[in-house]
């Protein structure tokens, strides 16, 4: 079946350093979404990418969708403590009702 692999599982950074998480799909995706889950909270939608090669920015966050629509990345510049949480990618494959979720990347700020 369709799978979305997300790496790394964890990333420890000093506050002010950058953070990147990557997602790779086994098949072409119609779109990809990104969610953030704060510790103890529920996933919250961040953004959706639809077009091949699309790049979107939200302040310090940059989202990319690959040319082949099989991979995506989220890059955070100069992390802050408010960025702590787990970031999930989720892609739409051949079903309109089901998202294929990555396992998430947990962003940890070193004390």
């Amino acid at each position, binding site marked *: 079946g369709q799978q979305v692999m997300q790496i790394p599982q964890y990333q420890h950074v000093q506050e002010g350093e950058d953070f990147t998480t990557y997602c790779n799909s086994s098949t072409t995706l119609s779109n990809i979404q990104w969610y953030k889950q704060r510790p103890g909270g529920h996933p919250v*939608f961040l953004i959706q990418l639809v077009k091949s090669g699309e790049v979107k920015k939200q302040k310090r966050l940059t989202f990319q969708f690959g040319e082949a629509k099989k991979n995506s990345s989220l890059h955070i510049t100069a992390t802050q403590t408010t960025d702590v949480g787990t970031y*999930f990618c989720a892609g739409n494959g051949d079903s309109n*009702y*089901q998202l294929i979720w990555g396992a998430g990347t947990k962003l940890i700020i070193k004390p």
Partner: protein
Amino acid sequence: SQTIHQWPATLVQPVGSPLSLECTVEGTSNPNLYWYRQAAGRGLQLLFYSVGIGQISSEVPQNLSASRPQDRQFILSSKKLLLSDSGFYLCAWGGRGTTGELFFGEGSRLTVL
């Protein structure tokens, strides 16, 4: 605006006891509804989804069941809980016929002892 309510927020249940988690959505009609489970520190596992009243699709065979008695109500049940049912259960809704974003409830944290 649309809101999603999920309860209870936390529950501790003995093995073999029944379960009922409820989710309601306000401010939208004909939503797609979803139940997900998240084990501690893990990703999201889709359990059930529904595109309409009485229409339930199951993704993972297990001792859980779901029902949608009304358009904006989604219930997750079990007759006899197992230890492995412990986890964080999340209800979500999405627009009908779209591949857009999902809106999640606050979640229900279940511990089976």
